[in-house]
């Protein structure tokens, strides 16, 4: 529906990290081994079907007398097939064990630490900075610097979710009251898509997020900008829009840095306009979509936690002017 240009952005066979690369390799090994096994079994089956007894054999009385030579040959064939099967399974087990070890390996360099918190139905990403005032929280969009090791700490606020960005890494569950970790190093720039992979309620299927891997320079520019408070409204309409925001239901759930709006129930909106999507990577971030979402989000994603908002046309216009100015 949206993001038509994101082909290959949600694929485990187009890895963007060495970790996902190991997983992709393992997948291809398993794929080819399985194809070979399937081909062999099918060939044996077809051979058995066509090598049916001839018409003369069918009419002749069946010879049931013990034939040690034939018995021995059949036993040997079955034993060889069994041994090969077990050997293949052990090889795959070993490969998956070594892959599992390789992808959970933490190198010595200082990693970038990010905390991901699952909510019904959006993603919260907390960038933890050694200087606390420089840390910030963003939603549904994970920006990462290319070539740096990332340690993602996962937890949940309500039910079990699962973090799954196949280009970066395998799945890992977000469990309330418990922290788990994902370690990877993005080495390819680009936009990738992630998705909740553990059924978590009404909007589970549309609980997505975007991962933007950028060069170091771009990333630190963005990082410095995100650690700032929200921009001040520059004209009267935007000022009125801020007033609408602060005096209505919005303020009960959302944060805009530098204003009294400071609630952490819904996604933070401090730099809303700098994000590419809204509604957990469901809609592109345009003024029109924002208007639809603010007024009646239940039509777009039934069951989500955002209440419908009845605003007069002028108030809505001002509010949208303000929200779209939050670069």
């Amino acid at each position, binding site marked *: 529906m949206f993001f038509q240009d994101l082909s290959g952005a949600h694929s485990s066979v187009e890895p963007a990290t060495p970790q996902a690369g190991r997983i992709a390799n393992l997948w291809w090994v398993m794929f080819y081994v399985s194809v070979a096994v399937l081909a062999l079994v099918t060939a044996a089956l077809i051979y058995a079907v066509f090598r049916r007894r001839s018409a003369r054999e069918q009419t002749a009385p069946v010879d049931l007398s013990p034939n040690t030579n034939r018995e021995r040959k059949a036993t040997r064939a079955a034993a060889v097939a069994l041994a090969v099967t077990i050997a293949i399974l052990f090889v795959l087990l070993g490969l998956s064990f070594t892959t599992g070890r390789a992808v959970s390996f933490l190198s010595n360099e200082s990693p970038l630490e990010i905390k991901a918190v699952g909510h019904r139905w959006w993603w919260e990403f907390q960038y933890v900075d050694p200087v606390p005032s420089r840390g910030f929280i963003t939603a549904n969009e994970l920006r990462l610097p290319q070539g740096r090791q990332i340690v993602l700490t996962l937890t949940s606020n309500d039910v079990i979710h699962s973090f799954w960005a196949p280009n970066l890494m395998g799945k890992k569950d977000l469990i309330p009251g418990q922290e788990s970790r994902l370690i990877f190093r993005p080495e390819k720039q680009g936009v990738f898509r992630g998705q909740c992979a553990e059924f978590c309620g009404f909007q589970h299927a549309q609980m997505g997020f975007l991962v933007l891997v950028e060069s170091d320079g771009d990333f630190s520019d963005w990082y410095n900008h995100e650690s700032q408070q929200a921009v001040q409204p520059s004209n009267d309409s935007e000022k009125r829009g801020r007033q609408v925001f602060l*005096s209505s*239901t919005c*303020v009960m759930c959302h944060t805009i840095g530098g204003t009294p709006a400071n609630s952490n129930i819904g996604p933070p909106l401090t730099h809303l306009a700098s994000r590419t999507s809204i509604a957990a990577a469901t809609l592109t971030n345009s003024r029109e979509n924002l208007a639809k979402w603010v007024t*009646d989000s239940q039509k777009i994603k039934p069951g989500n936690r955002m*209440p*419908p*908002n009845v605003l007069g046309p002028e108030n809505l216009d001002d509010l949208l002017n303000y929200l779209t100015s939050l670069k």
Partner: protein
Amino acid sequence: MTMREGILLFPRPARRSPPALRLRVVGMGALALLIFQAACKREERGFRVQPPSASAAEGSRMTDFQPGPRTPESPVKNEYEDNAYALSEGKRLFQEYNCSGCHFNGGGGIGPALMDDEWLYGDKPENIFETIVEGRPNGMPSFRGKVPDYQVWQLVAYVRSLSGQVGSNAAPGRSDHMQTSSPEQSRPRESPKLSGKPR
């Protein structure tokens, strides 16, 4: 065995049941349907809803004292009290909107307790609605314009469940977080009384 005996082995075609019996069967069926319908309401999840009684709360009185003879009030029915989903949403909002900041988990602390039988400003749904929307002197803030009407009604239903005023078939049975007291579902039903002054 003759042919005739064979046929007789099968039961005779049933005679038409007497009218009284038929009436009873129809009655039972209707009753069962009614029960099923009531049960369905418990599970209904409305996402684009009208509040159960918009502006109904505005008719509520602050005092029983009236000019002339007392006239009965028209009761306000909060349909969310029969609905498990709305009640659990109310429970979630009670935490998220920080009602628990003052009322704690219903036991009271900074604000009055909500799980006992004492009501300073009335225990009826419309009274509680007004308490939330208008605010009350000495500490209860006004949430007018900050919380949509339907969410206020969900909160009202949940607040009443704290003292066992709603049916146990719909009241929440568990908490998302650590259970602090017996679940709303198994609270004893308090008999509310208008009482006292604000502490």
